C-alpha cells in the first residue's frame, strides 16, 4: 500500500525534482542564517553554531519523515472532521496505522536527504555520535507524529480540523530555535504543551553532550506524546460514529 502511494506521487517527475530542489534551497537559506547569526553573535546562552547544525539536522530529518512518509497525519483533523475515517475503520488493520501510511509526499525526501547530509558534513559523525543521532531522530519523529495525532484528534471533539495547521507551524517554528532562549512559562509549554523541545533542542543536546538525565527526559517525552497520540485517537474513535456526524449541513 505504501509502495502504491509512492508510485503515485512520483508520477510527475519534473515537478517532483523542482519541488525537492526548492526544499533543499529553503534549508540552505536557514543554514546561511544560522552561520551568519552565530558568526556575529558568538553564542547564545551556551548554544554554538555546532549545536545549531545538529539541531537543524535532527529537525529536517524528523520533519521530512513525518511530513513525507506519514504525510496523512498532517491532515488527520480535516479527515476526522469531514467524516472520512469510515474507509479506514472498515479495514482489517489498525486505522491509525492505515491513515498514517496511506499518503506519502515524496517532496519531503529533500528534507530527509538534507538532514542526513548536514549531519554527515558538519555533525562530526563518529560511530557513537551517528548511533546517537539516529536514536534521537527516531525519538523526535515519534514525538512530532504523536503531537500531530493529538492535534488531529481534537477534531473528534471540536468537529473542525483547523487546529492542525497552526499547531504544526508552531511546533516547527519553536523547534527551530535553541530551547535555552525561552524562559518561564513558554519554556514549560514547549516541553509539556507544544513539545518543540523534544523535536529540536533536546535531541541535539543529547548528541552534543550525552547525559543519562537528558536521555531519560527524551524517553519520557516519547512515552508521553506517543502515548497521548495513541490514547487521544482511541478515545476519539469512541465518540466517532459515522461520516455523517460532523457534516450535517
Amino acid at each position: 500500500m505504501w509502495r502504491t502511494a509512492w508510485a503515485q506521487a512520483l508520477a510527475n517527475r519534473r515537478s517532483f525534482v523542482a519541488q525537492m530542489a526548492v526544499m533543499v534551497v529553503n534549508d540552505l537559506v536557514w543554514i546561511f542564517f544560522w552561520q551568519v547569526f552565530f558568526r556575529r553573535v558568538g553564542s547564545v546562552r551556551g548554544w554554538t553554531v555546532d549545536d545549531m547544525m545538529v539541531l537543524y539536522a535532527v529537525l529536517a530529518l524528523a520533519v521530512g519523515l513525518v511530513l513525507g512518509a506519514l504525510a496523512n497525519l498532517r491532515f488527520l483533523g480535516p479527515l476526522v472532521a469531514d467524516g472520512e475515517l469510515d474507509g479506514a475503520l472498515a479495514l482489517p488493520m489498525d486505522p491509525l496505522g492505515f491513515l498514517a501510511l496511506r499518503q506519502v509526499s515524496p517532496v519531503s525526501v529533500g528534507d530527509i536527504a538534507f538532514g542526513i547530509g548536514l549531519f554527515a558534513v558538519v555533525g562530526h559523525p563518529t560511530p557513537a555520535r551517528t548511533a546517537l543521532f539516529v536514536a534521537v531522530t527516531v525519538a523526535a519523529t515519534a514525538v512530532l507524529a504523536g503531537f500531530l495525532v493529538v492535534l488531529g484528534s481534537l477534531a473528534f471533539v471540536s468537529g473542525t480540523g483547523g487546529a492542525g495547521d497552526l499547531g504544526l507551524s508552531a511546533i516547527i517554528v519553536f523547534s527551530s530555535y535553541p530551547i535555552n532562549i525561552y524562559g518561564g512559562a513558554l519554556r514549560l509549554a514547549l516541553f509539556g504543551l507544544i513539545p518543540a523541545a523534544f523535536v529540536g533542542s533536546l535531541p541535539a543536546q543529547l548528541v552534543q553532550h550525552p547525559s543519562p538525565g537528558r536521555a531519560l527526559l527524551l524517553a519520557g517525552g516519547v512515552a508521553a506524546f506517543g502515548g497521548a497520540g495513541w490514547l487521544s485517537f482511541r478515545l476519539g474513535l469512541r465518540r466517532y460514529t459515522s461520516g455523517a456526524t460532523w457534516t450535517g449541513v
Partner: protein
Amino acid sequence: MTAPTTTDGRPNPTRGLGAIWFQVAHSAASSARLQPAALVHTGVHYLIVAVAITTLWTRAADGHSGTIVGYRAGALVWYLAATEVTAIAPPLRLIDRFGADVASGRFELELLRPAPALWVRVAAEIGTSLPRTAVCATVGAGLALVIGGAPETPVALVLVGPALLLGVALTIVAQHLLAAATFWLLDSRTSWFLYQKLQFTLGGLVLPLEVLPGSLGRIARLTPFAAMSYAPGRLASGHLEPGWLLAQVAWLAVLGLVTARVFAAGERHLGDGGAS
C-alpha cells in the same frame, strides 16, 4: 425592473481607474469580516513567528551588553516585529493561485472587463491584505512593547504605518511580476519559493542587513526586497529615515510599470492562442 434603455444604474465609462481601484480594494478588505477565523489564524501565526525570532535576538543582545549589530535590544525587537508583518500579512500563495487561474481560463474572463485585469487583481490583493496587515501590526506593536519596551523614537513610528502598507503593496506587485511567468511557462510554484527566500535574505527579514557578510548588505539595500521589509523595520527600530518611504514609492512605480508591460505582453500572448 427598469427598462435597459434608462441610464439609471448604467456603468459610467468616464469613471476613473482610481475610483475603481479603491472600490475593489474596499470590497476585498470588507469581505474579511465574513471570515474572522482566517484573521485570527493570521494573527496567531504572526505571533508564533514573531515571539520566536524576537526572543532569539533579545537573548543574543543580552550576551553583548544589550547592543548588537548597531541595534539596542529593544530597537531590534521593534525592527523584527515590523519586518515580520511584511512576511506574514501579504496574501498567501498568490503566485500559485494566479497560475491556477491562468491554467483554468478564469484569468481570461477577467480580460472581458472595462478595467485592466492586473489593476483589479492588485487592488483586490492589497484590499485583502489590509485587515491582515492591521491585525499583524497590532499584535506586533503589543509584542514589541512587552518584550522590547517603549520605542526609542516615537516620531519614526508614525512612518511605520505607511511603510508597512507600501512594503506589503510592493510584495504584492513583485509577486505578480513573478507570476506573469505563467503566461509562457505553466508551472510557477518554484518561483514563489525562490521569491520568499530572496525576501528572507535580501529583505533583512530575520537578519538586519547590517549583519550580512561583505558587501552583500550594501547590495541588498539597493534591491526592492530591502524596500519591502528592511524599510519598515529600519523605521520601526527608531531610525528617522523618511528616505525609505521615497525608495518604496519609487520601487512601487518601477515594478508597477514593468509588471504592467509584462502583463500586456502576456495578454497578447494569450490572445494569439499561446496557452489554451
